[in-house]
């Protein structure tokens, strides 16, 4: 059993309407602008961004940064400063007074260190965070900022990510499998990460896992079948074993034959939920039982490389939205494959519902995979010619699909979740998107870009 930090903002059963006793959202204001602005710095440009804000906005009270306060800001400091910088996510909150000069705000938007300037909105808050005493105020500010980003990212018509210019005729990148690791782990910077997913629980809801596979021997595995009449989570298909390998495979695959690394979170706890039968078929209800099981077991991440093709005129699934939203409130992020319907097909359910993170697929040049579904995609992952585990005796194999992109994001979510105890639920989703590598492809293909490890 993994060690758990008592500071983790776990949800409990009492999180209900989202408006806590100290909530910063006066009733009825949800969705309304607060008058403040959120400034997102470009990766690594926080210092020059802060300087630009001070020179352009002439902020009087100075800039209070979480980095200066060891991750804590109290309410007085937030009020006194014209600007609060949330160093963890590279976002600054600019007070209404400081932002009153719209010309100055627009000028700031042209600064090379600034990625985006967006209005902050009153949001429905996740009230369990308010009862984590130690860094309560910091977390509240962090939560408001990130939930505002969340709203912006999740609302239809949200601004597209800043495109990366690609030289004429050239490609953005070209990654290859090496003897040591897969192209996907390279492109997502997993191989450079110091995090392993230790202490984080990842549930993969799929066809199960080959329990005899040598690459998972000695790993603690919790399994549960939701397929009627099937008690074992043994994978008779291969889809599930491949997905679990990508999300949770070992840092050093055992010899023989001693293959390249292919797994994102080698020390996360493996929760195998068998929600598809050995022919790859399943009811939505089985997947919902799997989400319920993952939430009850406090899994921080759920990976679902499955979906239901729905006519565009059909309403979103109420059940999946409720399940995923209630999961977010309890610290569980559900991540799903966008679908393989290509440019003309919309997202599958449940990837299409707002509280599920939808993952599109890119190839090793970071171009959108031709098969990847278009729509409200949140983020992209490696999904073409992905090397991972398959049931014995083949042991390893290549597969392509948004089904392969999804577990990359899930495994990397476990790395982020390990890095900070408050990277949970919607905050975890925001961090994944805020830290994604922007891509030239439009947002309806790749969302905020390619997932990146911490």
């Amino acid at each position, binding site marked *: 059993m993994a060690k758990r930090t008592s500071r983790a903002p776990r949800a409990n*059963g*009492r999180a*209900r*309407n989202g408006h806590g006793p100290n909530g910063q959202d006066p009733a009825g204001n949800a969705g309304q602008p607060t008058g403040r602005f959120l400034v997102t710095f470009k990766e690594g440009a926080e210092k020059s961004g802060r300087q630009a804000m001070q020179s352009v906005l002439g902020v009087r009270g100075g800039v209070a940064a979480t980095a200066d306060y060891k991750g804590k800001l109290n309410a007085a400091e937030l009020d006194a400063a014209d600007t609060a910088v949330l160093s963890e996510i590279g976002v600054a909150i600019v007070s209404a007074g400081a932002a009153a000069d719209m010309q100055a705000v627009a000028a700031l938007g042209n600064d090379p260190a600034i990625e985006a300037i967006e209005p902050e909105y009153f949001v429905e808050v996740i009230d369990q965070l308010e009862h984590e005493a130690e860094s309560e105020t910091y977390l509240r500010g962090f939560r408001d900022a990130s939930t505002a980003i969340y709203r912006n990212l999740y609302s239809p018509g949200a601004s597209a990510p800043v495109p990366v210019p690609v030289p004429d005729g050239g490609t953005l990148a070209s990654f290859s499998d090496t003897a040591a690791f897969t192209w996907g782990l390279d492109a997502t910077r997993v191989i450079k990460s110091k995090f392993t997913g230790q202490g984080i629980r990842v549930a993969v809801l799929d*066809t199960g896992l080959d329990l005899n596979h040598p690459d998972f021997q000695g790993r603690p595995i919790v399994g549960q079948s939701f397929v009627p009449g099937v008690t074992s989570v043994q994978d008779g*298909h*291969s*889809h599930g074993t*491949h997905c679990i390998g990508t999300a949770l495979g070992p840092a050093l695959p055992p010899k023989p034959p001693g293959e390249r690394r292919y797994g994102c979170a080698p020390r996360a706890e493996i929760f195998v939920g068998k929600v*598809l039968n050995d*022919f*790859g*078929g*399943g*009811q*939505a*209800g089985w997947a*919902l*039982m799997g*989400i*319920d099981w993952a*939430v*009850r077991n406090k899994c921080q991440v759920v990976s679902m*490389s*499955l*979906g*239901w*093709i729905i006519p565009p005129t059909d309403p979103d*699934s*109420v*059940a999946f939205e*409720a*399940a995923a939203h*209630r*999961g977010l409130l*309890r610290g569980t992020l559900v991540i799903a494959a966008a679908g*393989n319907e290509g440019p003309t097909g919309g997202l599958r359910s449940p990837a299409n519902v707002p509280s599920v993170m939808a993952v599109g697929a890119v190839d090793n040049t970071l171009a959108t995979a031709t*098969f990847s579904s278009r729509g409200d995609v949140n983020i992209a992952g490696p999904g073409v010619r992905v090397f991972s585990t398959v049931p014995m005796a083949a042991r390893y194999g290549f*597969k*392509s*699909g948004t*089904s*392969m992109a999804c577990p990359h994001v899930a495994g990397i979510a476990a790395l982020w979740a390990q890095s900070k105890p408050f990277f949970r639920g919607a905050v975890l989703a925001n961090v994944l998107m805020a830290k994604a590598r922007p891509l030239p492809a439009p947002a309806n293909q790749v969302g905020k870009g390619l997932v990146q490890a911490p």
Partner: protein
Amino acid sequence: VRRRRIEAFALRPAAGRIIDIMAARKKPLLVTLDDAHVDKAGPVVASLKKAGLTDVEHLEAIGIVKGQAAPSKVEALRKIRGVKAVEEDAWTQLPAPDDPIQ
């Protein structure tokens, strides 16, 4: 097994009887409880059973009730206090293991 039996009926000439069988056949359903009843689901689940929902499984952490009922009973299930939505529990199918796109 049940589906095969009904298809066998379909081969018979008595068409009216087939329709009756199909109407009576239970469908798998997903009942989503509203936010106010996720933690107070007991009476709602009891009402669902009373209104004809069988094979009930209550997913307590996410406020969903799985079950089966004849299509004719769905409207009554929708009207129960604490029920946000009643939807059909749909079937999905992955491609075959060797399909190029998964």
